[in-house]
């Protein structure tokens, strides 16, 4: 038999050629090509250009620029900003998840919080920038309120909203909802039997949390914390919309390198910066995968 029976009544793999022509592997080919072209190739190009100079010859010059104080300060600011907002976001988000224990998963409270969290976590960094200009901008709602009613000038030492410190509040604003989305399933996976067992053995609520709840949840919590870090570290839109010139964090430095051709007197610096970002992301995601494996132990 050389042609595949369209109704497929022939036993599978009866003839090698038919098996090859009708092999299900072909079904994967279009998707594989697409992913190679629009994910694999751009990533390779982004990382590769860091090793090439203006004439296309191999150079380590751009990668060496990663040690430049300007670039180092960009990475430091990015990492500190991501770490601070990840910790604050994780703690506040976990508190909200805790407060939701015992509510009906399909009730209006949970559906509402789920929907709002989904929007605030994913929908548009640009709009977040507008929201914070309206809130703590120079003529913002809170700025004016504090100034006129309480005589407090939050910008007494200069306007910080458009610098790196100004990114802390907007970033927390998308970190907390993201934490709620990714941490809630872990809390829901806590087994009621564990609490019952603890209570039967004379444990109090505090015993349950200290001896069972926290240890079981710790890997999930740390894993979520890492995802929040990665989220803040790769975020670009909010910062870009707040400042059209600033280069305080790495994504903004990449913008500078892409739009001005020569930053620090080097071409292709964007590639080197991209390489640096990918290295940080790879470390974070590898740790995340490790923690996930530990967390999965309790989620069967």
């Amino acid at each position, binding site marked *: 038999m050389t042609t595949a029976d369209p109704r497929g009544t022939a036993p599978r793999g009866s003839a090698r050629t038919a098996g090859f022509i009708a092999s299900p592997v072909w079904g994967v080919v279009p998707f594989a090509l697409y992913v190679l072209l629009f994910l694999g190739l751009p990533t390779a190009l982004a990382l590769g250009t860091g090793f090439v100079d203006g004439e296309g010859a191999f150079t380590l010059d751009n990668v060496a620029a990663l040690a430049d104080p300007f670039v180092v300060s960009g990475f430091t600011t990015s990492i500190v900003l991501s770490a601070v907002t990840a910790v604050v976001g994780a703690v506040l988000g976990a508190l909200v998840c805790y407060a939701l224990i*015992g509510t009906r998963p399909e009730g209006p409270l949970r559906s509402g919080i789920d929907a709002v969290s989904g929007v605030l976590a994913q929908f*548009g960094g640009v709009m977040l920038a507008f929201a914070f200009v309206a809130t703590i901008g120079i003529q913002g*709602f809170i700025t004016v309120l504090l100034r006129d009613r309480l005589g407090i000038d939050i910008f007494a030492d200069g306007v910080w909203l458009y610098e790196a410190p100004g990114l802390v509040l907007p970033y927390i604003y998308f970190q907390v909802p993201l934490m709620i989305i990714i941490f809630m399933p872990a809390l829901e996976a806590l087994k009621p039997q564990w609490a019952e067992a603890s209570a039967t053995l004379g444990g109090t609520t505090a015993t349950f949390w200290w001896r069972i709840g926290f240890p079981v949840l710790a890997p999930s919590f740390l894993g979520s914390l890492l995802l929040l870090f990665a989220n803040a570290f790769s975020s670009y839109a909010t910062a870009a919309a707040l400042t059209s010139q600033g280069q305080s964090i790495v994504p903004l430095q990449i913008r500078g390198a892409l739009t001005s051709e020569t930053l620090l007197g080097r071409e292709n610096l964007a590639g080197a910066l991209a390489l640096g970002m990918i290295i940080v992301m790879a470390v974070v995601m590898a740790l995340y995968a490790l923690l996930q494996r530990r967390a999965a132990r309790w989620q069967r």
Partner: protein
Amino acid sequence: MSRMPAAPRAGIPAPRPLARWTILGLIGAVFAVPIIAMVEFTLRRGLEGGYDVSRWITVLTFDLGPEYRVLGQAIVNSLVLAAVTVALMLVLLVPTMIVVHLKLPRLRRVLEFVCLLPISIPAIVLVVGLAPVYGVIARAAGSGVWTLAFAYGVLVLPFAYRAVQSNLDAIDVATLTEAARSLGAGWPTVIARVLLPNLRTGLLAGAFISVAVVLGEFTIASLLNRQNLQTALVIVQKDDPFIAVIVTLLSLLVAVLLLLVIGRLGHVTTRRTS
């Protein structure tokens, strides 16, 4: 089944109502401030002070000057991009997921890894490599805005994959397929009349979340010099911040409604499978 949706969780110690409402109230209030600030901002009257709704009327009656035509065009661009991205998802991702699920279980881990990979590659990194790729595309297919959808298809992969995969896991694809085949259905019939109807909720959820991601995308469009809703908002904001904030509030509202619909769909799936 082991899942008990409405059963009281006798075990896990729930917070006392006072603690629950204090936490939710405080965090909720803090998160409401920027939204309230935006509303207050759009209602401000010029220098004389006081409030009115004239700007909202201007926007809601489409009574904007020609300088805002960029915004209208950008909204159309974003909607086109959302449609093409969802089409890419349906044509490329979904058939692959079904084939892998049914015939190539060994590739499942690989597919999952590839689909979740975009989470670890920041869009700002991707854009560095996309710039030369789009240079070639512009020469071959013109610089139409729809071509951006190829890049957006990659951005939505993790979200679309998760939505469809959870649906695939919830239905018994193998049994459904074998039942249909033993009744004489060919593969096209199996896919169109058995699998797709059963995957409806996952596909819809994946499509909705993809639309939300595409409508909120800024990084790639901005650095490849294409116009979409977000890049246009940045331009409009420089001219008239009030209009930009009103459009922001409206799109937030639309997005919340969209996600409430997704939430509904999710509950329909769990009820069906339990």
